[in-house]
């Protein structure tokens, strides 16, 4: 593997802090008041609380890494994954990502219940950055995979949740990427379909250069990952290769 095709994710002293605004400090009046009163009464009006979701995170992930994020609820796994999608820009330190990213965090993002299945496929395809010329092929592939037949011409709100997941899953797994992000392993559909979905996801994961998966399932982490990162209270407490 040449240097050019190398994918890396490097974090240096990365921190993510969430400001939590109560109804009070979200009001413009109080902010204005605070400005004019020079902070004298600011103690009373400002109830801004900062949650340090991630703090002092350092890592260097490269091609071939299969990373398992483990830790209790609220330890920062999902926040870290979201930062890796680029949605949250770190409030401190740096995060540098080289390579295309495919996020499986919210596979039904942007789906419109009143639009038909096929319209949703086009919408999501566009959001994924697929060109107009390739959209048709993309849609055909997803339709074939999801096995919904004529239902794809029906509004999505008429779908069962299983059908909805088939389409969402089909779309999200259709495009391969250098880096795949996942919050728990995805499993969709009935037994027969689940097997097919499993194969598709396996293929996507094995084609990816870096996999980052957060999970509470230690069996899954053992099976899928070669490097386990343990987070606690927003900090990395251990980072080791297991294979």
């Amino acid at each position: 593997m040449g240097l050019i095709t190398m994918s890396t994710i490097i974090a240096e002293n990365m921190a993510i802090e969430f400001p939590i605004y109560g109804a009070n400090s979200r009001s413009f009046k109080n902010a204005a008041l605070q400005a004019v009163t020079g902070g004298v009464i600011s103690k009373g009006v400002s109830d801004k609380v900062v949650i340090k979701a991630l703090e002092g995170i350092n890592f260097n992930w490269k091609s071939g890494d299969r990373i398992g994020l483990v830790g209790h609820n609220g330890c920062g796994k999902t926040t870290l994954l979201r930062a890796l999608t680029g949605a949250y820009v770190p409030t401190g330190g740096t995060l540098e990502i080289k390579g295309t990213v495919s996020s499986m965090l919210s596979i039904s993002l942007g789906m419109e219940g009143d639009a038909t299945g096929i319209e949703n496929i086009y919408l999501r395809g566009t959001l994924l950055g697929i060109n107009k010329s390739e959209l048709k092929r993309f849609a055909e592939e997803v339709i074939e995979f999801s096995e919904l037949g004529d239902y794809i011409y029906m509004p999505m709100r008429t779908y069962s949740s299983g059908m909805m997941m088939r389409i969402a899953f089909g779309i999200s797994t259709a495009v391969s990427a250098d880096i795949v992000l996942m919050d728990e392993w995805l499993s969709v559909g009935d037994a027969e379909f689940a097997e097919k979905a499993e194969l598709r996801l396996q293929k996507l994961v094995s084609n990816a250069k870096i996999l980052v998966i957060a999970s509470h399932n230690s069996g899954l982490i053992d099976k899928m990952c070669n490097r386990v990162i343990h987070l606690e209270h927003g900090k990395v407490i251990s980072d080791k290769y297991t294979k």
Partner: protein
Amino acid sequence: MNYVRTAFIDVLGGLRCYEIWTMLAWMEIKQRYRRSVLGPFWLTLSAAIMIFSMGPLYSTLFGQHLNDYFLYLATSIIVWQLISTMINDSCQAFIGAEGFIKQCSLPLSVYVLRIVYKNIIIFLHNFIVIVIVAIFFPPQIEITIILFIVALIIIAINALWVGLLIGLICARFRDVTQIVASIVGLAFFVTPIMWKAEMLGSKSWLINLNPIYHFIQIMRAPIIGGAIDAKNWVASALITIIGYAVTFILFGKFKNRVAYWV
């Protein structure tokens, strides 16, 4: 200067994603009017009803000839609807796109461009009302009529900075949405929409302080065959420049915070 660069890159990136915002805009329009027979023409119809009932009434109230007042009113109201809806929609630009903003790293300007594009589509539907009124009460058509296209482009360009700025502020301070709504409601009455600037007599210069007036005027004057006043164009250009300067600094500075605010 770094802030301006950040903002500039975002806007440029947003413009490049035109396939996304045009699609999102159409989806929104379609979704709102799904299963309705007239679709987006419902807005056109309600604007038409408003204009056709207010025209005769207000021309009598203001002692204006229906002939020129009708087209004046029709153009004013349609242009006002374009501007006011863009401003009001801007409040929800980022708050309403929370799901997207927290999940993917599209340029934030995409969510504003979607609003601008959506409102221009609706405006073009509504434009039919102006055409119908113009058939009944034909204005003097001058070559300057094409200026209204330039005016529409200027309004769209300004809608972008207004959307970025208001969207940003509303994401941080939730009650600004209410403030904007009441200012826009008030602006309808203090802007020459139903009435004409000349009616103010010796105080008509005051109207120049109203920024919305200039934008309505650059669009309205070419359509109704009125005199083209350079003053309105210069004012609009100045507002564009100042607006972008302020917005780019603020937006560039706080852009990355939006995902944490929404």
